[in-house]
C-alpha cells in the first residue's frame, strides 16, 4: 500500500466515491460537512486532496465551462485503483477488529 491513510483522507475518498461523477470541490465539501457535521475550510480540503493526489489515490480532470461560477470550469476528482484497494483493506481491517472486539460495541437501535 502506498502511504498511510489518515482518518480525514479516508472520509474524503469515501465522499468522492459517494458523489461519483459529481465529485468537485464545493460538492465534496458540502457533502462532508452535511454528513460528518463539521466545518471544513476549502484550504484544508484541497490540501488533503493534493496530498491524496501525491499518494496516487486521486486523479482529476477539468469539466466543461459552466454558466454559473463566472464561466469557470469545475475540477472533478476520481478514485484510482490504489485508492479502492486501500479503502477495502482499511474496511476489512476494521471489520475484523469489530468482529473480534471483546467489548460489546453494537448500537442498540
Amino acid at each position, binding site marked *: 500500500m502506498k502511504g498511510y491513510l489518515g482518518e480525514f483522507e479516508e472520509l474524503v475518498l469515501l465522499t468522492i466515491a459517494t458523489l461519483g461523477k459529481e465529485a468537485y470541490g464545493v460538492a465534496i465539501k458540502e457533502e462532508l460537512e452535511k454528513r460528518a457535521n463539521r466545518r471544513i475550510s*476549502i*484550504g484544508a480540503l484541497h490540501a488533503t*486532496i493534493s496530498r491524496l493526489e501525491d499518494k496516487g489515490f486521486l486523479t482529476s480532470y477539468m469539466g466543461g465551462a459552466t454558466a454559473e461560477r*463566472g464561466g*469557470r470550469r469545475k475540477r472533478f476528482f476520481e478514485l484510482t485503483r490504489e485508492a479502492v484497494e486501500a479503502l477495502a483493506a482499511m474496511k476489512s481491517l476494521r471489520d475484523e477488529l469489530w468482529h473480534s472486539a471483546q467489548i460489546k460495541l453494537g448500537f442498540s437501535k
Partner: protein
Amino acid sequence: MINPKYQPPRLANWLLTRFCSPELVEDLLGDLEEQFYAHCKHQSITFATGYYYQEVLSLIFSYALKKRKKDAAWHPYANSSNHIVMLKNYFTVAYRSLAKQKFFTIVNVLGLAIGMSISLLLIAVIADVYEYDKFHAHHDQIYRISTRVADPVRVTEYASSPVPLADILKEYPEVEAVVQLDKRLSGEVNYQNKFIPMSGFFTDPSFFETFSFELLEGNPKTALAHPNNLLITASEARKLFSYDDPIGKTVSIEPMGDFIISGILKDHPKKSHLHFDLIGSYAKVPLLENQGVLEKGADRWDQFRNRYTYLKVSQESALAGLNSGLHRISEEKQAINPDTKVTYLLQPMRDFNFGRTIYNSPGPIWELYPMMIFLVLSLLILLPACFNYANISIARSLSRAREIGVRKAIGSRKSQIFYQFLVEAVLVTLLSFAGAYLLFTYIRDEFIGVLAPGSAQGLTLQLTPTTVLFFLAFVVVAGLAIGLFPAWHFAKIEPLTALKQNVFISRSNKLSLRKALLVGQFTISLGFIMTVVFFIDQYRYTLNYEMGFNQDNILNIDLQGIDYRLLETELLKMPEVERVAHSSQIIGASRADKTWVMNEDTQDSSEVFHQFVDQSYLSLHGINLLVGESFPESATHDESVVIVNDKLVEKLLDGNQVDALNHTLKLSDGKEVRIIGITANFNYATLKDSIQPFFFRYQPEQFRYANVEMRTTDLFATMYKVREAWGQLSDRKLSAKFLSDTIGEAYSWYWPLLKIVGFLGLLAISVSCLGLLGMVVLTVENRTKEVGIRKVHGASSGRILILLTKDYLKMITIAVVIAVPLTYALFNLMNPFILKYRPDVSVSSILLSVFILLLLAGATVASQTLRAAATNPAETLKYE
C-alpha cells in the same frame, strides 16, 4: 438566483491571485464563487463576504496552492527528490568549473589556505586547552579552593589557600577527600654526586584517590607513610639512577635533608595542570617548618602562597552547602589586615586552565582576554580570505551568468543553482584545508616556541580525535559561510536578463561593495604593517630610554646566601673594581617589591615600592639626591632612616621637599622611619610600570645582589678574576650579569610579540594581495577589448596604465586614510597596558608603513596592468 448586485470581494480574489496565477486556481475560484452565491441566498452578504475571506486565507497557506505552483512551474522530473544524483552532478560541474579557471582557483585556494591556517592554530589550541585534566577519572568532581584578596588598590585571586582550611573542610559530609599540596618541594636532588634540579609537591595519600596519577612501583596507600618517603617519576628516576633500582635508595635535597625513594610515579600526561618530578609526604612539612627550613604556615591563615587545597566532592548538588560553608569561613577568618578582605572560593577543575587571571597557579592559565584577541586576529585574517572568494566569484558572474541562464531556462531550480555554488565553495574550502593544514604544521612549532615556556606546558597541538572533529566542523562551516553569498547571488539571477545579449549585472552597485571589501582588507593589512613598525620603533626607544640612573659597567652578582662583606673584600682587591654596592633587587629590570605606609591623618595606608640598598648604592648608580643626604657610613642594623623619591613626597606629603625632609613615615609593620633624602624620579622598575612612590631602605640582611662598578678593557680576564674570587667563597656557580644586559633582557618579550604580529601581518598582506591580484586580472580580462580600441584610437601605454590602475590607487588611498588614524588610536589605546613610558608614534614610521603597503599593492597591480597596457591592440582585436 444570482443577484448581480453582489460580487465576491475583489480584494480577496486579488490577494489569492497574488499568490498564484489565476489559471492555476480556476476551479478553486469557481468553487469559491459558487459557495459565495449559495451563502448569499440564505445568509447576509456580510456573512458571505467574511466566509469568502476566510476560505481564501485558508487556501493561501494550504499545501494545495503550493503544490499547484510547483507542478506548474517545473518539469515533473525537476521535482524528483533524487538528491544523490544531483549531488554527483554538482561535484562534476564544480570540478569542471574549477579546472577551467585554474588561475582563480589557485588564487582562491592559496588565499583561503593562508586565512584558515591561523584559525586551525586557534582551534588546535582550544581543543588542547579543552582536553586539559580530562584524564582524571573524577575530573568533574574535583575542586580547588582559591583565595581572593581584596585590598584597597586591587583584587587578586590566588589558586592557593591557607593550610588550616583543609581541617575545617574535612568535616563536611559532601567532601569525599581533601588533598593538600605544598609546592615547596624543590631543589637539586643529589644521588652519588649527581645533582639534578627537580620540583614537586608534598602531599598526602588521598592524592592518588582523587587524581588519576599512577604509581609504577610502590603502594599508593603506604608509599607516603613515612615523612622521609619520596616518590619520583620514571623519567627523572632514569636520569638520576641510570639503571639502578631506585626503590629504597637515599637521596638528599638541600636544605631539606635526606629522603628515601619509596615508589616510582608513571610520567603524568602532559595536559595536566599539575606538573611534578617528585612527590613527598605531607608529614614532612611540619618537621621542616619546625627546623626552620621552610617558613611556618601550618596554623596560619595569612600564609597561602604555594599551598593548595583540592577537594573531591561527592556530587555536584552538594556544592551549595560547601559554598555557604566557605562563605562562613571567609567571614570568620580575616587574618591579613583590616583593609583587606579575604574570600575563599570553590573552583571547578574545568576552570583551572582557562578563564580569569589567577596568581600562584601550579599550571599554565589560558586567560580569556588574550584568547579573545587571538580569536579577533584570526578572524581578521580569515574574513578577508572569505571576502576574496565571494569577491572573485561575483566578479566572474559576467562569465557565469550565461551558464546559469541556460541552466534555469532548461528547468534548473533556484535551490539547485544555490546548491551547485555551495558545493563549489565547499570543494574550494576542502582544497584550501589541505594547504592550511600544511601551513599549520609549520607554524605550530614556531608558535609553541614563541610562547612563554610556562604556558606552552603540555600544549602539543597534535591531532587528536577532538581536534579532527573541530577541524571538520570548521571546514564545513567555513565552506558554507564563504559559499553562501555567491550562491545566493547566482541563484537569484533571472534567466531572461542573463541570456539577453550585453547584460552586465548592475555594475556600479556591486562594484562599490567589492571595492569596500578590498578597502577593508588593505586597512587591516596596513594596520598590521603599522603595528610592526611601531613596535620596532618602541623597542629601540625602550633600549635607549634614560631611566634616571647609570646602567653601564655595573655587574650584578647574585649573592646566593654568602656574606656580602666577604665578597666585597675579595672584589675590592681587584684593580678593575672601583666600587661595590649592595641591593635587594636589580633596579629597572623587574617589578619592584612593595609595602604599605600608614597615613597618620586618614588612618588608611598607601602602597609604596621599596628596595633595600647600602650606602654606596645611590652614588654608584648615579641617582641624584635633590635634597638631603645618602645613608650615613655608620648606619646601624636597626633601620631608622629612608631615602624617598620625589613622587612619594608629591603623593603622600603634599609635595614640599623641604618639609618632607626629616618627616617620619610609619610602615605597616609598625616601624617608624625618618626621611633623610629625596631623589629625583627614576624608573626603578621596567617601563611597563609607571613611577610610583618609592623609597630606599637600609637593611643588610635583605641584600641579595652585589653591584660592582668596574673599569675594564679586558672583560674576559676580569670575569675570570671575579669567578676566582667567587670560587673562594662558595661552591655554587657564579651568577653574574651586567645591569644593562639585564635591563635589555627585560624587554626580550618584544621579540615573540614582533614575531607573532609580523607573521600575522605577512598572512594578512598575502591574503589581500592575492585578492587584489584576482580582481586586477578580472578587470584586465574584462577590459581587454576596451584597451585595444583605446590604443587603436591613439591612447598611449602610459594613459592605459593610468586608466587601469586609477581605481586601485583610489581604493588604497581610502584604506590609508582609514587605517592610519584607526591604528594610531588603537595603538595609543592599547599601549599603556604594554608600556607606561613610550615614544609618540612618529610620522616617519607611518610614512614607512604606507610606503611598504603601496609598494606591495603597487607591484601586484602593476604586474597585470603593465602587460595589458603593452599588448599590441592587433592581438586583442583580431578575434572579432
